[in-house]
């Protein structure tokens, strides 16, 4: 695992890229490499994080423009190969806009930008992204978003439930998300998108370590 490298994608407007890199390198001793959004050669990274922020100023819709970057075009093959991709906040929005995950993220029900710690139920163990084997567990992670209300139609929701693709649900739904959804995976489990920020919960001195496991699980095969 010494050479395992996590690519942290940098779009114009990303602002959690350094936090993710700091958490991986400083807290977990996992090597990272920044990937400018115009790169399309992903051969020297073993997993990828799409960090939070406001890629392309959130113009048109959050994540809508990022979808057309060379890097996201190259991501399809990366995902198909089974390598792991974690989309946090704006990264989750990009994953839904580009079709790697179903549904969409729209303006919070109360229109507020919500910056808070939230309690989350871990619902599925698919992909091994959370420290649960079979029983439900609760973790606390920070959220910081204005457009984090997960929306999907009823058929999609049924598929998410039936196939155990719902990773996280809010205990006290802060933004009006359908079915309290805070994070979902793809069917294979190698892609996780979530609105909460695990990278901001990797050190006791800044409010908790419930995010460590998810970042550490990037190195799972």
């Amino acid at each position, binding site marked *: 695992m010494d050479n395992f490298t996590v690519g942290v994608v940098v779009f114009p407007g990303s602002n959690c890229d350094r936090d993710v890199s700091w958490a991986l390198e400083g807290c977990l001793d996992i090597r990272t490499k920044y990937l400018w959004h115009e790169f399309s050669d992903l051969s020297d990274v073993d997993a990828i994080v799409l960090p939070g922020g406001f890629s392309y100023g959130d113009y*048109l819709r959050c994540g809508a423009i990022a979808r057309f970057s060379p890097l996201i075009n190259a991501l399809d093959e990366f995902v198909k190969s089974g390598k792991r991709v974690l989309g946090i906040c704006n990264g989750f929005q990009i994953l839904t806009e580009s079709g790697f995950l179903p549904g*969409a993220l*729209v*303006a919070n029900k109360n229109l507020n930008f919500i910056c808070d710690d939230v309690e989350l139920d871990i619902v599925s163990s698919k992909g091994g992204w959370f420290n649960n084997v079979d029983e439900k567990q609760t973790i606390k992670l920070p959220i910081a978003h204005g457009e984090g209300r997960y929306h999907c139609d009823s058929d999609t929701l049924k598929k998410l439930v039936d196939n155990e693709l719902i990773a996280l649900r809010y205990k006290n739904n802060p933004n009006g998300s359908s079915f309290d959804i805070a994070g979902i995976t793809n069917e294979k489990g190698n892609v996780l998108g979530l609105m909460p920020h695990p990278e901001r919960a990797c050190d006791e001195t800044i409010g908790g370590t419930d995010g460590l496991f998810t970042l550490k699980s990037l190195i799972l095969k």
Partner: protein
Amino acid sequence: MDQFVVKVFVRLRPSVLDPAGEATKSASIKLGAEGIKSLRIGKMIEVKIEGNGENEVREKIDLLCDRLFANTVIEDYEYSLEKL
């Protein structure tokens, strides 16, 4: 080549809550406007585009609407087209 002005209207689907529309409705009522039954906010995108005839331009605009201008998971679109 013909030139066209295309006006694309993108709206949240009726099944998607529009909190910005609700807030604006509430402000409209506070302003004293009566009789507002619903208010929803969308986007208008104006494109000047050239092509060989209306059909070719419609094909291009359909692609743009479907892949970029609207996210059809949450939004509907329609457009009008005017030859210059």
